[in-house]
């Protein structure tokens, strides 16, 4: 079972992001379960959503405490709560930011993960460019597909189009593709560095 936890704020499409990820898993014939952390829904309030993907029926209903992947949609949450809590030692981290891991004081954590398991993605900028709305969820799912390889990018794209038919889906798909390519390029570069070292 692969467990992902998405942290963000109300209005950033955190819950929809987890739902789209579960749809992508479902499209590949797998079992998937997405659910939000339940609370009063307000714009700007911290929101957590969860997604489990497995090859067999998922019966577990507890919130995800030991995620295989943390997607951080809003790095200002780092000051409020321990968003990477329980992240597995071989896990993945995706942060939406234009800053660096050092700027965010995440270097120590990132260095503990296997090389190439943590990426930064300017997902809000990509969303503003393509969707004209600061909803970084689709772009981050593109990054997720590139980083983890758990779901194919095509499935992510189809899930995005299912959630947002028409032009909005096209725009979100374009943001996801750019994020996917960006992460693939970063990953290739890091593999080359690892090969040289």
């Amino acid at each position, binding site marked *: 079972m692969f467990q992902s936890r998405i942290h963000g704020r109300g209005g950033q499409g955190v819950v929809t992001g*987890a*739902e789209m990820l*579960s*749809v992508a*898993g*479902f*499209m590949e014939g797998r*079992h*998937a*379960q*997405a*659910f*939000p952390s*339940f609370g*009063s829904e307000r714009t700007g309030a911290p929101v957590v959503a969860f997604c489990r993907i497995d090859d067999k029926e*998922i*019966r*577990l*209903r*507890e*919130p995800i*405490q030991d995620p295989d992947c943390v997607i951080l949609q809003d790095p200002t949450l780092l000051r409020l709560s321990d968003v990477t809590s329980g992240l597995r030692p071989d896990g993945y981290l995706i942060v939406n930011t234009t800053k660096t891991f050092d700027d965010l004081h995440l270097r120590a954590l990132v260095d503990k993960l296997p090389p190439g398991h943590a990426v930064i993605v300017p997902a809000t900028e990509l969303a503003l460019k393509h969707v004209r709305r600061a909803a970084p969820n689709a772009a981050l799912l593109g990054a997720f597909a590139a980083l983890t390889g758990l779901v194919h990018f095509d499935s992510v794209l189809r899930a995005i189009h299912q959630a947002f038919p028409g032009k909005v889906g096209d725009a979100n798909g374009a943001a996801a593709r750019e994020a996917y390519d960006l992460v693939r390029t970063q990953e290739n570069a890091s593999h080359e560095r690892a090969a040289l070292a």
Partner: protein
Amino acid sequence: MLKQIEGSHAMAEAIALCRPEVICAYPITPQTHIVEGVGELVKSGALQNCEFINVESEFAALSVAIGASAAGARVYTATASQGLLFMAEAVYNAAGLGLPIVMTLGNRAIGAPINIWNDHSDAMSMRDAGWIQLFAENNQEAVDLHIIAFRLAEELSMPAMVCVDGFILTHAFERVDIPDQAQVDSFLPPYDPVQVLDPENPASIGAMVGPEAFTEVRFLAHYKQRQALRLIPEFCEDFAKTFGRAAGGLLRPYRTDDAETIVVAMGSVVGTIKDVIDEMRDAGEKIGAVALVSYRPFPVEALRDILKHAKHVVVVEKCISVGVGGPLADNTDGALRNLRDRPKLHSAIAGLGGRPITRESLKKLFHDAVHAPWIGPFFLDLNERVVGREIHRGRKVRRAGSTAENILKQLALASHLPPG
């Protein structure tokens, strides 16, 4: 057709397939996306021959349902939490009048203090009202139970409540097989009412009944509901034949064959419990579980047959009947009452007001039931420190203030202090 879909929307689709003719609902929270979903299906024309009535309160929602049902329509409504309390008088009336209304309850806690999260307090508050109460373990079962509920309710002329864990199921996206119309039509015949209010043949129902007949009326209500103990397994077998998958039943045992410890629970927590049981079985422990689907009627004999060979029974439930303990534990105890060598019963209250029920806590609970048993109801993951302080405060100070606010203050203070 397999879909990755939100529980509420899956249920809305299933309810539409049951061809309800009147749906009435109060759309303000506490409510789920279910009535929103069926509302859309009526508006789009996907659900034909159905009137969606937007009422002004939950009391009106069920009152309109009663009127429509008495006039011979297949009726559906949904509510949760405080909404159910507001319609309480009508809940009893629907049962007393023998009207086969189907209602979804998106289980949530009841205030005060205000709490919008999941537990079973709402369902338990109406457990004696005379409705059939069925609990869903996952969203597939939530879908299937609605279809079964309509058939059952109409066969017995008795209302049925499908209890679905609020948020945990209603807001979860998961894989659900949505049946097609032909399947549902072949399983659920058109509604043939037992009694109809008809202006051509004027009659009244719900008249005054004095001491000379009230006991008999109540006896027959009890008798009638006990008929469901026979009909539920029968309909569920028929359901499996029509739809190609098992659903519902009175209860479902899980790895109980040689189990010395058996856990009894209802609703979505059963999924987590099954995972814990697999883990403990792998470690060599003889443990199993029973998922209770039908809470009303309570399957006394069926439950007793499964539990009678166990040494320990652990009841995990999301409700506290203040002043006595867990209602499900009480009913389970009742089922074991006259056994010669009865298993020890351990009652646990868990998941109140949305507190997550984790594998870790359950594992410890099942272990402790055998090795370090407790007396009375045990509150899983209770913050004893906070409780202790509050009890102490209340003893020292007369005007100790509101418990809820005091505890929040304590927690806020603790979060700013270094741990320890």
